[in-house]
């Protein structure tokens, strides 16, 4: 079972839900939580455990071999990302535009662009308790592409955790490539929002994205009680399942600010997580 926690708007509670839900589910299930917000992973602030694995991760980038190049121009012609330019007798590769598609390298008539590893970040695995594992990938400062590291982290999870483990993915905010990469292969997506005009605006964008991907999804409303009823009206109108509502509560904010989990201290939050658990285990209807 693979579940992604996403949101259109940032700061609506993805990490709060992901960390609390993973700990709550681990009371009865094997769970792995992967923080795939690789540009700024922060689930680790709330889940403390023993570091069991630390791996440097690399992506493959073509490296120009000046000595063998015949200046055919094929590389710059086939690159869909404009990551290669030809400046007179010199080929220049722009690593931040390269999508590691290998086209230039494979099609070069003189094999002058061998793919070479370039460091992009670090993957860490922590044991939180007997049932809960936490995996965090963190992009190096200066790296611009989140997707390759997200892909490798997904592969790591697939390789190391079998189907008896519930796999939770804490997504980056927004609705662009990194979010697509996180959500495209999961069984269900939980969209968390806040009941404000900004929350609704960005919720609509991510709902439309999930429909395009034909995902089964439901909505959790966080900080319920602020703002207005427009998010609820929208979900009702669109036939979208509102899975749970987490109240706007100063006590919750204080626990969060201290880096604490909430569900074990605020019974109402545990009740809402129980609803989320029911959604996860319900038969998918598809949207």
């Amino acid at each position, binding site marked *: 079972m693979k579940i992604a926690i996403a949101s259109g708007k940032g700061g609506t509670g993805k990490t709060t839900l992901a960390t609390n839900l993973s700990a709550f589910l681990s009371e009865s299930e094997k769970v792995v939580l992967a923080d795939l917000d690789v540009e700024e992973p922060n689930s680790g602030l709330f889940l403390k455990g023993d570091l069991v694995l630390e791996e440097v991760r690399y992506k493959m980038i073509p490296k120009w071999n000046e000595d063998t190049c015949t200046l055919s121009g094929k590389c710059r012609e086939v690159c869909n990302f404009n990551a290669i330019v030809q400046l007179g007798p*010199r080929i220049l590769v722009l690593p931040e535009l390269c999508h590691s598609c290998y086209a230039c390298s494979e099609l070069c008539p003189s094999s002058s662009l061998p793919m070479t590893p370039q460091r992009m970040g670090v993957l860490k695995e922590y044991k939180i308790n007997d049932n809960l594992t936490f995996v965090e990938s963190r992009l190096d400062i200066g790296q611009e592409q989140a997707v390759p590291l997200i892909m490798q982290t997904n592969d790591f999870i697939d390789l190391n955790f079998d189907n008896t483990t519930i796999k939770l993915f804490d997504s980056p905010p927004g609705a662009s490539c990194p979010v697509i990469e996180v959500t495209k292969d999961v069984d269900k997506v939980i969209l968390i929002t806040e009941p404000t005009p900004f929350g609704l605006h960005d919720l609509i964008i991510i709902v439309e994205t999930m429909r395009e991907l034909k995902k089964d999804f439901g909505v959790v409303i966080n900080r319920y009680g602020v703002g207005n009823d427009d998010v609820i009206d929208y979900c009702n109108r669109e036939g979208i399942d509102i899975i749970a509502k987490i109240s706007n509560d100063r006590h919750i904010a204080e626990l969060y600010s201290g880096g604490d989990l909430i569900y074990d201290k605020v019974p109402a939050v545990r009740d809402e997580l129980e609803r989320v658990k029911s959604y996860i285990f319900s038969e998918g209807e598809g949207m």
Partner: protein
Amino acid sequence: MRIVFTAKGTEWDSDMDPRFGRTQYLLIYDDKTDDLVSFDNREIDKEAHGAGTKTSQRLFDLNPDVLITGNGPGGNAQSILERTKVEIYTGAGEMTVREAYEAFKNSKLPKY
């Protein structure tokens, strides 16, 4: 001296295009022959990635002495252009091409 302008049209009275990578046209002026020719760059709209490097490649192939533009190139374009001899002047994004040329001649544009 050959000068390239980023522009929204093909005439001296056309507005400058403040963008470098996604400029609609490149106008090339040769002050020896007084010729103004244009290169249609509007295909760049189809590029999701690397507009700056693609236009930089075009600029390299045009091989001018001076580039006059608005905002200046982004990081990727910059890393290409610094390997060429072209001198870059910015701050002409709100002018017409003619005004930008006059401003350049009168040393009113900041060098990038």
